[in-house]
């Protein structure tokens, strides 16, 4: 496998962007960017990706504010926000500038939490401190460590589990989440009670935190055994047995979800699709899941453009991609695609144009598209194989 790591035009943005994505998963929560104007205004497009209001207020610091110290501006801005909106959660996100001068922000948010009787949490969003995935994780840690009371198992609804690590801004989430929920119900008889940090309601959903949580999406590598997204028949079966194992009690895996039938349908496409070149630009949970399906079940040759965990997965569990690009984005990625000559490219709007069919798969998507029909699970796999075999993208 060819491995390429580059950061000229990285796939991932700063920690700040991950924190904004994660914040969008808590109902009514407001991300407050503590830093210069553009760190906030430049990223208002992110909530829009999840059809959320693009509300990202900044403290809008200038040069002289940074020199004199920024604590007072932060206090004033959060108080103002409460006067205007009183959000159930305020997420103060540090930028490179404020992270570098490192004042005692932790004490400020603690004091504000008391003063306003409403949680204010702190996430270091500096790109120097980490990338988008780190930002998402830091948000989850800050929320669960400072806001959420210790889990009490009695409050938790019985027989359920949660999926943790999706974001409202993930492309196609509204199609895939119902598929995931239904598969878990049908195959394992378990109820997905919530997807934590996706439409999370701080008033009602706290007890869900004491349910067993299956790490998916942004947090998938927090599982002991990494389970990439359930694309394909075999991929779906693997993901479901992974959950069964993680739940400990080994719930019976039944075939009602249709992955056995799908396996047959897919094997008939396999001859047609064998050797087809397909490129995937996405974060690792999605990219690895889809890549495994295309390579193992349909015989395609795969190029992955993904985050560091996409490479790490292959080092741990076996290589399957022809080429794996780590953190390569935009025009830099296009040059690798020209080289690879794929028939299909799954990815963001950056990779829409080229001598290939494009399937929108990863944010940012700014070209108008029909909603994703959902590619996960057995039915999604058949839908996908059909499109690849017919050689036409849904979205010309």
């Amino acid at each position, binding site marked *: 496998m060819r491995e390429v790591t580059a950061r000229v035009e990285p796939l991932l943005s700063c920690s700040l962007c991950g924190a904004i994505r994660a914040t969008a998963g808590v109902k009514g929560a407001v991300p407050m960017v503590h830093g210069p104007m553009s760190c906030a205004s430049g990223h208002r497009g992110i909530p829009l990706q999840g059809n959320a209001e693009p509300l990202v207020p900044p403290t809008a610091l200038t*040069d*002289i504010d*940074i*020199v*004199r*110290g*920024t*604590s007072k501006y932060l206090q004033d801005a959060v108080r103002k926000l409460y006067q205007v909106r009183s959000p159930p959660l305020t997420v103060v996100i540090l930028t490179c500038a404020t992270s*570098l*001068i490192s*004042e*005692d922000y932790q004490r400020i948010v603690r004091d504000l939490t008391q003063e306003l009787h409403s949680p204010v949490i702190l996430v270091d969003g500096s790109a120097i401190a980490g990338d988008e995935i780190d930002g998402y994780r830091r948000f989850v840690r800050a929320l669960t460590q400072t806001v959420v009371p210790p889990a009490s198992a009695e409050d938790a609804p019985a027989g359920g589990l949660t999926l943790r690590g999706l974001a409202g801004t993930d492309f196609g989430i509204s199609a895939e989440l119902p598929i995931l929920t239904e598969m878990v119900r049908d195959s394992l008889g378990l109820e997905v009670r919530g997807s934590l940090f996706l439409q999370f309601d701080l008033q009602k959903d706290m007890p869900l935190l004491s349910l067993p949580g299956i790490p998916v999406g942004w947090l998938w590598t927090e599982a002991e055994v990494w389970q990439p997204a359930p694309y394909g028949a075999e991929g779906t079966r693997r993901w479901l047995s992974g959950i069964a194992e993680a739940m400990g009690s080994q719930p019976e895996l039944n075939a009602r979800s249709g992955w056995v039938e799908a396996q047959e349908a897919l094997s008939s496409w396999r001859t047609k699709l064998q050797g087809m070149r397909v490129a995937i630009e996405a974060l690792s949970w999605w990219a690895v899941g889809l890549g495994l399906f295309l390579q193992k079940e349909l015989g395609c040759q795969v190029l992955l453009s993904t985050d560091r965990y996409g490479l790490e997965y292959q080092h741990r569990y076996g290589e399957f991609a022809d080429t794996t690009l780590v953190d390569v984005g935009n025009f830099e990625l296009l040059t690798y695609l020209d080289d690879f000559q794929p028939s299909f490219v799954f990815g963001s709007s950056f990779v829409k144009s080229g001598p290939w069919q494009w399937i929108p798969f990863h944010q940012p998507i700014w070209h108008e598209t029909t909603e994703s029909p959902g590619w996960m699970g057995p039915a999604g796999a058949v839908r996908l194989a059909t499109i690849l075999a017919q050689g036409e993208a849904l979205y010309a």
Partner: protein
Amino acid sequence: MRRIAVYGKGGIGKSTISTHLAAAWAASGLRVMLVGCDPKADSTRALLGHRSTPLLDRYEELVASADSGGASSSLRGLIEVGFAGVRCVEIGGPEPGVGCAGRGISMALELMEQSNAFADLDVVVFDILGDIVCGGFAVPMRLGFAREVYIVTSGEYSALYAANNICRGMRSLQATLGGIIANCRGLPAEKQLVETLAHAVGSTLIGTIPRSGAFPRSAMVGKTIIESVPESAEAGQIVRLSQAILDNQNLIVPSPLDDAALDELAAACLDSGVEW
């Protein structure tokens, strides 16, 4: 115009020497400005007799008038005139524990340059906070605000260590050193020790100031000894140093010692037979 910066370990006597040099030059008829580059804003008190309002406290106002073309006049309002006509500016900076002092220094110096604050001067002296702590404090050297650096040190190991460390910063910035000033603590053979370091880094000992109660006593009443006891021996020594700097043409990029060589230099001094 001569552009001079005074660096050295914290508390070593940079402000004392800067104000006294400024006072001596001004008293001899030169047009002098002293710029305190330190958030403590305590560089100019001995020339003014009081604390001056720091430039950064009025930054917005200055920028607004710079935008309307009037910065030089409003900056003039901020520049106070002290003993013998020395123009005094304190840059100032954040309260301890917050903000970014280094950034403040560079912003203030740029604003002063844009506003022509350094026009019509024979000498400008920059009195710089402590050791080089971040990029901001290197700005006076880096952007050419100061062209010759003088490092103040005593014979104490920590002061020599800091002096050598400043040379290290200067080497990487390719900044030029005019000489090393010994501000004595009263150690045996102190002058020789400082001189040995000066030669080791490729420079010279440009002057020696004795330890004397006259300095802190005069500082108590907000004066330099050039003003309060001009006939004293200490004042004479300051005047000699000020003249040596004016005459100095020996500017070099220093070659710092590595830690082992510095330790050797210090140990050799103990072995030299001088009684401690």
